[in-house]
């Protein structure tokens, strides 16, 4: 009875550093596809960020309540409710709320599309790598290793895409705002608000990527090692 019971330290491990290395390389080797998946995240987050930062900029300008700025804002159809002594009209409030809920819908939809896109791309990636996953399992990989690898991969894509999206969304909005309101934007730049938006966008993007990758990663992990033996895939 030598063997399994006797041998000390029945552990199997995949150190985080190796997992990171493997998943980064898997992304690199499929760079084209990774880019397409990532661009979905970039677009969704850019949209989110541009909506949020333009809200921030506009509300910061409104709060200044200078007549010249108010004029510019009104030209753009923004209610400057504080013009007549501080009381916002009911009508303006309602309109603002409607606009906001419309925005939420659009944001929600774009994020949903983004998750579906990620899930789709990851599923494809899993299917393509059936044999690789099966081989890893034959070499002793646990289900959790496979999940780890795929979630890491997706997280890297998500974080990179989100950062790019934040930057693009912000710069576009800033550009447009500069066109509309000129130097006032910079004079009353809502730094804290923008940073806060960026932070939330980063969280949103990362969470989305993780959620999108969960089902594919689970599917990959549940694969039987016998798959590795099949030569016709």
């Amino acid at each position, binding site marked *: 009875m030598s063997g399994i019971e006797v041998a000390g330290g029945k552990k199997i491990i995949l150190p985080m550093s190796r997992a990171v290395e*493997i998943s980064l390389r898997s992304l690199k080797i499929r760079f084209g596809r990774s880019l397409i998946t990532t661009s979905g995240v970039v677009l969704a987050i850019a949209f989110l960020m541009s909506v949020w930062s333009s809200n921030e900029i506009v509300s910061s300008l409104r709060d200044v309540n200078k007549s010249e700025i108010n004029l510019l804002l009104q030209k753009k159809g923004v209610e400057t409710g504080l013009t007549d002594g501080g009381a916002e009209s009911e009508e303006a409030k309602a309109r603002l709320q409607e606009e906001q809920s419309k925005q939420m819908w659009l944001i929600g939809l774009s994020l949903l599309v983004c998750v579906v896109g990620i899930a789709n791309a990851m599923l494809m990636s899993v299917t393509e790598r059936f044999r*690789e996953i099966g081989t890893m399992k034959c070499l002793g990989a646990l289900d959790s290793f496979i999940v780890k690898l795929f979630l890491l991969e997706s997280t890297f894509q998500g974080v990179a895409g989100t950062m790019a999206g934040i930057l693009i969304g912000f710069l576009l909005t800033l550009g447009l705002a500069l066109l509309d309101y000129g130097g006032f934007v910079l004079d009353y730049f809502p730094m804290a608000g923008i940073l806060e938006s960026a932070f939330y966008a980063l969280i949103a993007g990362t969470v989305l990527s993780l959620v999108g990758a969960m089902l594919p990663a689970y599917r990959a992990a549940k694969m039987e090692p016998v798959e*590795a033996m099949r030569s016709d895939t």
Partner: protein
Amino acid sequence: MSQAQEQAGTTVQPEEQRTVVRTQQVKKMYKMGEIEVHALRGVDMEIYTGEYLSIMGPSGSGKSTFFNMVGGLDKPSEGKVYIDEVDVAQLDAYELAWLRCRKIGYIFQSFNLIPVMTALENVTLPMVFAGLTSDEARDKGMELLKKVGLGERYAHKPNELSGGQQQRVAVARALANDPAVVLADEPTANLDLRTGTEIIELLREMNDDSGVTIISATHDHKMLSVSDRVVWVKDGQVDRIAKREDLDIEVTHVEGE
């Protein structure tokens, strides 16, 4: 190496040897729609430590199923499979992974190296799983690569290697954690005649050197002359088992025809 000498000798005495894989009345049924397919109909088999065993049989004979059973890749519907005296059916997922990692080395028909990794990284991956430090793994990996004649090419990716070279890397990888058994699934099927022969000789060499048990599923008749025993599987049962000394005659006979 007493084992090696024993192998080199003419007689293999099963009674004196330690069993590494044992199957008891192994049956396997698959449901294909309404029909039950009996892939294995009760196989009793003992595989001994240090032997080079070939499993032959046409496709659909149950050969692959049997092969997967003894490799811990599949569980029987009925009967028992013991690998190193451990009942495979009793193992949980973690123990099964551990068994695959430490006790069994796999060699595949289509090499199955991980494309994003270099030859050395492919060889060391099972060692990483087994918890070796990266220094230990690198040293041992280099040693194994030298053994299979690829010491110079450790930094090459699989797609920069020929089929034969990839299979050599796979052989080195299979030996990474000093397994009790190496399972080779048609290891020469995707190779030309000469390269296939080289791989067979390499396997035989590893078997002689380290005493590792080699179980190989094959169609390749070149494999017969190096095997200690050959098992023919037919209709889900062991058709016959032949030892090498009996085979030599047969092979010459066939070639003489």
